[in-house]
């Protein structure tokens, strides 16, 4: 009995301590609630030992076993806002904040980490309690998302920007990617979405299965906007391999900004010859175009301007060698309308239509159209038998040492005069031709 009476006296004493602010320090200093304050980052009132801003004693007795003797001074966010005013007032509010669930994230008395959170700089265990974890487990991750530094970009309470972003998406991105921002300002050509849209138009700022955490694989990401090119890529019977390889469009184009039109890393021809300037491209290897052009005094018209695209479609084509129109892939094909479209898109359309002409070609004997003789006849010789498509060391894109005929370099011995010329190729005996005074052949 004596022990019991002593205990009740002690409890009464403790109750007296707790009910009065004057004695509040004892809540956390006594054994009962001491752990609340024994953390690295206690809540300020806890640190001060002042429990009364949040807790109000209901009765005189404390503690009473099985009975709550203290009430919270307010419910939900009302409890916090007396001190933490101004949170949750912006246009968009984080759902727990809106619902007054401050304690969903924060421990009200204190924690071992800052901001009364259970987590440290890596917030992902906290945020991913509610948010879908999938984008955070992708192969390619954005740095801040990879380390759970959600707060670098997002405001956990409220924001005027969608996604609780701390500011405009572009501004947030460029605030870290300052070097990029500098280059962007100085760039000659900028991809319009980069110039004005949010970076998230193309990138998933958390992570994605694709390099540079873009939203879709290449070229699909690009052809989402560049639809006409998408159609070409999808339907091309002759695809350009880099478009379909890893890297897709970015194998030729820069995605943000560039030095030249089309956001190419250099002028068109340099980009093309970057690959087509070697002897080892493909099996069997494609021709080394750089070697074909180098040092040649006569370039095909478009190439003088460095315009490979005049004849080839780098995105894909339905025609041989990515050409923009029909051209026979065999060495021989008698002319028929449409079969030589790749060349006749620019060159005289009627070149091969009439056996006699005075206007469509200078390669004629009298009025006899010698192009017609060579190409329309039974053994239709394609343009390449005499002419080089890219460059030559002789006039009319005819190489002085002839053109490749299988293993043999077939000589042409082509010469020009003011009214005609002559040819002594490996094909036939020497023939002269003259537009004004027709040569007679025996």
């Amino acid at each position, binding site marked *: 009995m004596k022990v019991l009476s002593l205990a009740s006296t002690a409890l009464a004493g403790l109750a007296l301590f707790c009910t009065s602010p004057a004695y509040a320090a004892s809540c956390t200093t006594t054994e009962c609630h001491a752990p609340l304050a024994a953390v690295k980052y206690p809540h300020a009132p806890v640190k001060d030992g002042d429990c009364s801003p949040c807790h109000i004693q209901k009765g005189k007795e404390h503690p009473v076993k099985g009975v709550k003797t203290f009430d919270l001074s307010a419910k939900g966010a009302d409890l916090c806002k007396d001190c933490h005013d101004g949170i949750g007032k912006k246009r968009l509010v984080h759902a727990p904040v809106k619902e007054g669930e401050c304690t969903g994230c924060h421990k009200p008395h204190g924690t071992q980490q800052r901001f009364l959170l259970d987590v440290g700089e890596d917030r992902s265990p906290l945020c991913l309690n509610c948010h879908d974890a999938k984008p955070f487990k992708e192969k390619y991750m954005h740095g801040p998302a990879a380390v759970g530094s959600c707060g670098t970009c997002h405001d956990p309470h409220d924001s005027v920007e969608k996604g609780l972003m701390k500011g405009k998406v572009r501004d947030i991105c460029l605030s870290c990617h300052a070097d990029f921002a500098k280059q962007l300002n100085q760039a000659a050509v900028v991809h319009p979405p980069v110039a004005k849209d949010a970076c998230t138009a193309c990138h998933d700022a958390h992570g994605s299965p694709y390099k540079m955490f873009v939203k879709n694989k290449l070229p699909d990401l690009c052809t989402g906007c560049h639809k006409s090119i998408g159609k070409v890529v999808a339907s091309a019977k002759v695809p350009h391999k880099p478009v379909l390889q890893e890297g897709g469009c970015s194998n030729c184009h820069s995605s943000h900004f560039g030095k030249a039109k089309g956001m190419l890393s250099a002028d068109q021809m340099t980009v093309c010859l970057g690959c087509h300037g070697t002897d080892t491209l493909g099996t069997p290897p494609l021709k080394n175009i750089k070697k074909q052009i180098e040092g040649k005094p006569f370039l095909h018209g478009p190439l003088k301007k460095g315009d490979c695209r005049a004849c080839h479609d780098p995105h894909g084509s339905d025609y041989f060698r990515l050409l923009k129109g029909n051209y026979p892939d065999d060495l021989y094909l008698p002319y028929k309308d449409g079969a030589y479209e790749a060349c006749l898109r620019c060159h005289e359309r*009627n070149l091969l*239509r*009439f056996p*006699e*002409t*005075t*206007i469509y070609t200078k390669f004629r004997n009298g*009025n006899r159209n010698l192009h017609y003789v060579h190409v329309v006849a039974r053994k239709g010789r394609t343009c390449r038998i005499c002419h080089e498509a890219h460059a030559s060391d002789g006039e009319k894109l005819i190489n002085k040492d002839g053109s490749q005929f299988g293993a043999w370099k077939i000589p042409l011995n082509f010469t020009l005069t003011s009214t005609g010329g002559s040819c002594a190729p490996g094909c036939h005996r020497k023939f002269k031709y003259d537009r004004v005074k027709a040569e007679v052949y025996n």
Partner: protein
Amino acid sequence: MNGRFGGAVTAFTSRRLKDLMLMTLLVALLAGCAGTTASVGPVFFPPPPEEPHVQYLTGISSSTDFGSNQSSLSKLLVGGTETVTRFAKPYGIAEYNGKLYVCDIGASQVVVVDFVNKIIKNLVEERGSGKLRKPVSIAVDDEGLVYVADTGRKDVAVYNQAGKYVKSYGKTFDHVSLSGVAIYKDDLYIMDNRLSKVFVINRKTDEVVSVIGESADRSKNLALPNGLTVDSKGAVHIVNVGNGSIKEYDRDGNMLSVFGRIGDSPGEFTRPRGIAVDDDGQIFVVDAGYQVVQVFNEKHRILGYFGQPGLMAGSTNLPAGIVVSKKNLDYFQKFAAPGFKLREVIFVTNQYSSAINHSVAVYGLGEMEGWEERAKQRAKEDAEILEKRKKILQQQQRQQSPQE
């Protein structure tokens, strides 16, 4: 021109009676002041509510249309270049330096019309070997030499700007009836409608360099050619009244393209005559049977027509020759309705004229302000209608298909 030819015809037919009544009244009113230019509202082709593409601007039948107060008698007495009082039977027409050169078969003359300076005069005063008899077709070269195909003289006579006879073409080749002439650079194209051939002559050497219409493949030859012109690229366009076709040739006589046939649908011909091709490749073909000018694009698709038989303003009464020009657009713009911007002007010769309709009628090809927006709006509405129809059709197909 948006290919709404059919729509234009329907709209025209429904208005025709009303128009006829109105015109009869107008003619009655104007009977007392014959010779003065009639004033009517803008005449558009196609007529409203279609988007206008051609407007009838003005025309000339006689010197009084230019406001000349000189009496016919005094002009007759003065003679020479001032004797034109009235076109008799104009046919071929050409343009040079903004002036028109018109063959008048009835008057055996070439009449020069200068709209800007309000001058209408005869070109040729020659008697004897230089005299014109039945001038049908005309062309002017870069130096201003005037080439006249004359079926009475049976040659192509050449005159300088002063009207002096210079030379004649036709002695170096066999021909029957030289009824057409055209020029491109050094080439002179002379058409023989009886032989159905066009002779290509080098103007420097006077030699026949090739003949159009001598192909072994008869389908590539001519059938009663009735009009010709050379476009800005040097292709010769020849009208064939025999089979209602328009054939395009190069200077070597190779046929490049062909379109048209005899018939009574838009794009078909009954008595095609003059032809003109503008710098955009648009082809204008005069039809004396339907008395309209049909317009085709460079791919030979019919775009529409202008002119019409009858007494309404802007009619083409027995039309023959045609020429298109971009000269003096500022001058002719004054005749256009507010907001109608001219791109080029088209001159058509009519063998019959009235108080309202002229021997040489001037039409403007152009667009009304804001037509592009309206065209876009129409295209959008059309697409919506098409979409609706598609849906209805799909619905019907679903209902018709057997239920599974």
